[in-house]
């Protein structure tokens, strides 16, 4: 069995690339189709992000639209030090934060973070003997590659559902890191949390999701 886990996960992070630069040039040239493409791909994920803090759909939509206006105002000054996506999420998180200070319907991320006190270890504890060995080893999965997993639409749907039911702080971090592909540093910047907090939430979230996949795929 080859083991490839020991490469840094950050290697697959999105860095500002040629795609971003080209898109930026088109936007600055007033290309409406380019703007529509950007909105088409990011508006949904942005709304999803904001809905974690804001339960009311109309307020969430408002925050996202305000964000787009801020994005337009700042676009000429965008220096490409992060990807366009990360920069936009940063603005979005700032808007959500600002909103939370004057609107009781908006929950600050810090509160979600504070509420997240379960430990990932507790989820696994029952599977170890008192001296720390597996009492119930992880079962082999029916699929072992991402490609094979993708073919299993019902499992992917279960994974998506499991992601939606993660505690909010874990869901946000896992979504930004693993779904949207931001680096740990970018996630810390966007959410204004420490590296440790980021990693703990990521660990809890991934641990839970692996367990949920194991329920679907273990044999």
């Amino acid at each position, binding site marked *: 069995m080859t*083991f490839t*886990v020991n490469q840094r*996960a950050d290697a697959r992070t999105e860095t500002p690339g040629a795609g971003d630069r080209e898109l930026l040039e088109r936007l600055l040239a007033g290309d*409406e189709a380019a703007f529509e493409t950007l909105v088409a791909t990011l508006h949904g994920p942005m709304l999803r992000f904001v809905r974690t803090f804001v339960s009311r759909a109309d307020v969430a939509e408002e925050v996202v639209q305000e964000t787009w206006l801020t994005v*337009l105002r700042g676009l000429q000054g965008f220096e490409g030090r992060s990807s366009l996506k990360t920069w936009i999420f940063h603005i979005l998180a700032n808007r959500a934060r600002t909103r939370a200070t004057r609107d009781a319907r908006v929950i600050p991320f810090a509160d979600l973070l504070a509420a997240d006190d379960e430990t990932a270890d507790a989820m696994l504890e029952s599977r170890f003997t008192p001296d*720390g060995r597996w009492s119930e080893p*992880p079962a082999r999965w029916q699929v072992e590659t991402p490609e094979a997993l993708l073919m299993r639409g019902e499992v992917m749907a279960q994974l*998506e559902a499991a992601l939606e039911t993660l505690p909010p702080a874990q869901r946000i971090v896992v979504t930004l890191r693993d779904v*949207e592909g931001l680096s740990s540093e970018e996630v810390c910047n966007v959410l204004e949390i420490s590296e440790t907090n980021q990693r703990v939430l990521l660990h809890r979230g991934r641990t839970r999701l692996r367990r949920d996949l194991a329920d679907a795929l273990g044999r």
Partner: protein
Amino acid sequence: MLTCREVTSKATEYIEGTLPWTTRLQIRLHLMMCWMCRRYLAQLELTTKALRHLAGRDAPTETPTPLREAFRQWTNERRR
């Protein structure tokens, strides 16, 4: 020697590459000898790779009219 419980509790830090090299080495040694933890880590990694494919699961959003107008206005202002 690290226990399996310790290895799984450090799994994310190991994948992220944030552990001190001594701990890293200890985990590598453990993994060489423990198929259960190898499987666990491979499954954890597979989980994160599968998540990446959930990006773009939202149907494309049509640009709301006020935003399209804001974009036109923004373009015109810069042309003046």
